[in-house]
């Protein structure tokens, strides 16, 4: 398989940031009361991840290894400030609900860990695809959790009424997010157990 495609696939399922690496859990629980919120924050993360990966891949020869962490943080903070000014123009009402978390993308562990583990060692093109794959994997996780919680909590999807009643109100409460993530993680582990015959340790060992 082409390496770039493999990098994309790697971020989506085998090393999914939320369910396998268990990084950046805060937004995964906090903003996923509906699909729209998850979608908007996911898109912001894709943007920041791709652009910071590319920036670090281009400028890595200028960054002294001993001050790399502050340098990465500044690069991420730069792109977060950019997206923080773009999003309110695109979708003002949804932005209001995820505002705090868009600003908090700076401290999302997934972004800095990809910069440290991948973009600081590899050239521009693979870094771009790695960032894109991780970002899309994150977007996929947020949308999946958001869809489950919105459907069971309010009986809606994308704001459209489907069931017409609230089957499980607990899903939109704070506790619901924790339950949904716990169960999806267990399902990921179960699928891998069925395919490979051993219990994976990546999510559980963290």
């Amino acid at each position: 398989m082409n390496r770039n495609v493999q990098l994309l696939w790697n971020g989506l399922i085998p090393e999914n940031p939320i369910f396998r690496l268990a990084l950046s859990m805060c937004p995964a629980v906090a903003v996923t009361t509906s699909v729209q919120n998850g979608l908007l924050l996911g898109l912001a993360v894709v943007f920041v991840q791709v652009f910071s990966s590319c920036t670090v891949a281009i400028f890595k020869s200028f960054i002294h290894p001993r001050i790399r962490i502050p340098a990465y943080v500044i690069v991420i903070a730069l792109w977060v400030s950019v997206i923080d000014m773009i999003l309110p123009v695109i979708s003002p009402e949804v932005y209001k609900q995820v505002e705090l978390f868009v600003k908090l993308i700076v401290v999302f562990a997934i972004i800095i860990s990809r910069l440290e583990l991948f973009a600081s060692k590899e050239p521009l093109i693979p870094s771009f695809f790695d960032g894109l794959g991780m970002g899309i994997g994150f977007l996929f996780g947020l949308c999946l959790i958001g869809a489950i919680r919105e459907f069971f909590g309010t009986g809606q999807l994308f704001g459209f009424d489907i069931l017409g009643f609230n089957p499980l109100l607990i899903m939109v409460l704070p506790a619901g997010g924790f339950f949904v993530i716990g169960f999806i993680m267990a399902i990921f582990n179960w699928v891998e157990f069925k395919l490979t015959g051993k219990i994976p340790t990546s999510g559980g060992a963290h």
Partner: protein
Amino acid sequence: MKACKLQRLGIITVISFVFLAVVALGVSDAATGSGSFKKDNEIVISFGVPVDESWAKNAANFLVFEKTDPDIQLPIESVTLDAKRISALIRFSEPLNLSSEYEVIAKDVASEGKTLGTVEFLVKKSQGQILFTIFLGAMLINNFVFTKYLGLCIFFGVSQKKETSIGMGITFTIVMVLSAIMCWALLTFVLNPLHLGFLKIIVFIGTVAIFVQAVDTILRKLNPYLFKKLGVFLVLIVTNCIILAVPLINADSGNGPMESLILGLGAGLGFALALFLMACVREKLELCKVPPVFRGLPIAFVVAGLFALSFLGFSGLSIF
């Protein structure tokens, strides 16, 4: 022995914070006139002398309005005097906004047949009450871990043993309070005068990172024992969302220095509490028969969900 030392350190820290809070309450609890809120739709005013019951029963003798818009008078439902006829309780049909100031004007106060003239009362929540509300809100009602889902990476990473969770909780609380104050000072004295509000994110995360590095260096020289205990956590703190969220919340709601400090303290103690509770459960969980696919993080998430459910019960405290 070492665990004992660590616990003693924790107790000293908690006591000093409580002392600081008490001093803060004492200093800032300025005299606010003789009116106060009873419930969210009741105001108590005290006249100092016994007044006539027939005069007090007449609701038309009282004018109540918010200090910011004096034109809008609030409808009074009833006025009752207490047994000594010194203080009156004014009840309103609609709930009041407890964070704003109200003015009560009592017209032609009648006392034992004489008229004492018009008396004005200023009613507002005292500074101490506001700070206590912020503290309780940040620590229990809106616990940053269980109802705002912040700091989860560290929460699940460090909550495997009780001892490490105590160390992390103490370190985090100290860094949180100090960085909340520092970010407030930077925002008020540097960013706002220069109209650089859009640089908040970069400046705050830079401040926290520099500050953590500084504490790390100072502690390494001053107290090697403490450094060995807390050094690992210091580095982890930079990746905790709460450390950036609290200064951002402070900046957005325009909190003053005291409010910023108390919000930081509440957030830090709330995080420490959540971490310690979780560590207690996870130590027991090691001994349980958990289904293999749930072992590790998945079951920790389910436990956190149950904690979040029980923390919903604290929302009853929001009457303060």
